[in-house]
């Protein structure tokens, strides 16, 4: 999985590309731990994310909970398959999903 960081100051966008699964979830988790200090507006851009498993969902959930405390998180450009996963698992109710 490739993670591309952009943004400045209190705004951060992480563009995720590839597959967020058991083996790549720790990579995103490490990136979030290293980058979220002082961030008030986080965007996870999933335009090029093809696959998301429960391991990835856990990292997304942890990120959402941290951002609930320090600001806001938005998930964008979610493909149909991943949207279905969010719906099945109830993540649609806790995430701010846009276009």
């Amino acid at each position, binding site marked *: 999985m490739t993670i591309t960081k952009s943004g400045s100051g209190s705004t951060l966008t992480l563009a995720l590309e590839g*597959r967020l*699964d058991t083996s790549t979830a720790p990579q995103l988790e490490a990136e979030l731990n290293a980058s979220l200090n002082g961030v008030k507006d986080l965007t996870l851009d999933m335009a090029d994310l093809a696959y998301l*498993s*429960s391991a990835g969902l*856990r990292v997304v*959930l942890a990120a959402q909970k941290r951002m609930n405390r320090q600001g806001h998180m938005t998930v964008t450009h979610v493909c149909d398959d991943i949207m279905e996963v969010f719906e*099945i698992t109830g993540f649609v109710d*806790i995430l701010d999903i846009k276009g």
Partner: protein
Amino acid sequence: MFVRKSFRRFFMPSLLSCIGIAIGGLADCVFVGNAIGPVGLTAISIGQPVYMVFNTISYSLSIGGSIHYATALSEGRPEEGNRIFNNVLRAALTIYIVLCALGLIFLPQVLTFLGAGEPGTEVWANCEELVRAQLLLVPIMFCQGPFMYFVNSDNNPKLSSIAFVTSNTIDVVFNYVFVVLMKMGVAGSVYSTGLGATVMVLISLTHFIGKKGNLRFMWPKFDLQVLLQSFKTGFATSVQYIYQFITILVCNRLLMMVSGELGVAVFGIVFNVAMVAATVYDAISMALQPMVSTFRGEHNRGNIRATLRQSMEVGIAVSLVIIVALMVVPRWVCFVFGLRSEEELAMGTSAIRIYALCVLPSAVNMVMTYYYQALDEEFASYLLFTLRNFVFYLAFSLLALKGVDWFWWIYPCTEIATLLSLLLYAKKRGSLTLLDKGDGKEFSEFLYSRTADLGKVEQDVAEYMERLDANPKQCYYASIVVEEVCGAIMNNAFVMGEGYIQFTIVPHEDGTVTIHVRDDATKFNPFEMDTDSISLDDDTGLDAIGVKMIKSKAKEFFYRRYAGFNTLVVRV
């Protein structure tokens, strides 16, 4: 490695239980042979066909009836199940009582038919004593069948096993008490079997008292259709007893004609030795059959071949041990069965050494018969079984007409002729394993421990699905199934990181794929994970998120603990 480990795990307990059963079978001959001598062994051989008749009736009705009973229960028709059980039990008892009454009325004619020789001889007296006892106790002895199979099918295999083991133990112990200590003669061996059977039925009755299952006693309307269906279904298994009835009868009569009672007594010993050897191959089959059936469901030809190879290796190794034992100490074997004089020992030794020549080909023949059965190659299995146990056996029994020494070649000749037939059949079918080459579209991979790279495996699955031209949604959920199920097993069922998971993906013509996941970990059903407890707010139950996804999207999914494996099947 997976196959070897699993085979070992099944084989040893099976071997021990089969040896236990074999000891029960040998007890009659050993105690009677030592307490009464060859004339007692002759009587047992002569009386064997009586048991075979009732075995045929009992096993046909019980096995067939219990299969229909289990089907009725699985279809939610418990009343129908009880109707089947009570019809079978009542019919079996009625047939036993009528046949036994007729047998007792016409006992002299029955004894003549069985080949007991002339009235007034010692052999006749012993046979009369034995067969009378058999006919008196048959109704209770053969009630074991219906109780054992139906209680087992009524989800109480534990009680069924306890009853069986207890019955067997009582048979052996009281055989010694009645025949050796109390000197009750050859009939004592029948009384001990009857006592064991009575205890077994009593133990089985506790299943009804506790009302834990569905089985109930009732008096249903007579249903010929149920009985015929049950008999037909069970007949495939019990046809062996008809073969044995005919072959033993023919051999006994031939031997009585050419060598008198000693030939029949030695035949009884060789028959028992053959039963012990067969016991080992039965144990192999108990390991082979569930494994081959499982791998067959997964289209896993590699593991099927490995299981067959493993079975053959064990079969051949055990055969070599048996051959050496029989060749080196045949006199000991004869001694154990009560032969003492030089004439008896000479005939027994010669017979056992000739029998030893058949052990190796018989291992191959029996393993292949069980293998074909597990593969649902019914014709091949039935062909081998019939040639070996009936056609060739009967044909080569005519060797007895050249003299008793020739008769013992019946075993090597039968086994070698069967083996040649097997090879010819395999050549005709193009392969000994009878496995088609497949279309190569299945995909299979292993995960060897908790630290296996699940991410790589899941990506391999995605690439495989793309090669199949599966639609994106299917690719997605096939990967999800593999990752989530394997992950749940690795996290929850592997002890100390140890274990194996093998999964196989089988594509179907309708565009769906079936994912078979099999592991050798402790019992664990991922589909029982509590998906209702998932709370994203409280961070609870998150382990079950993957399973929730599978349950929502799979067309079918089920788990079963089978033959020591956890097996899961998911269709997407």
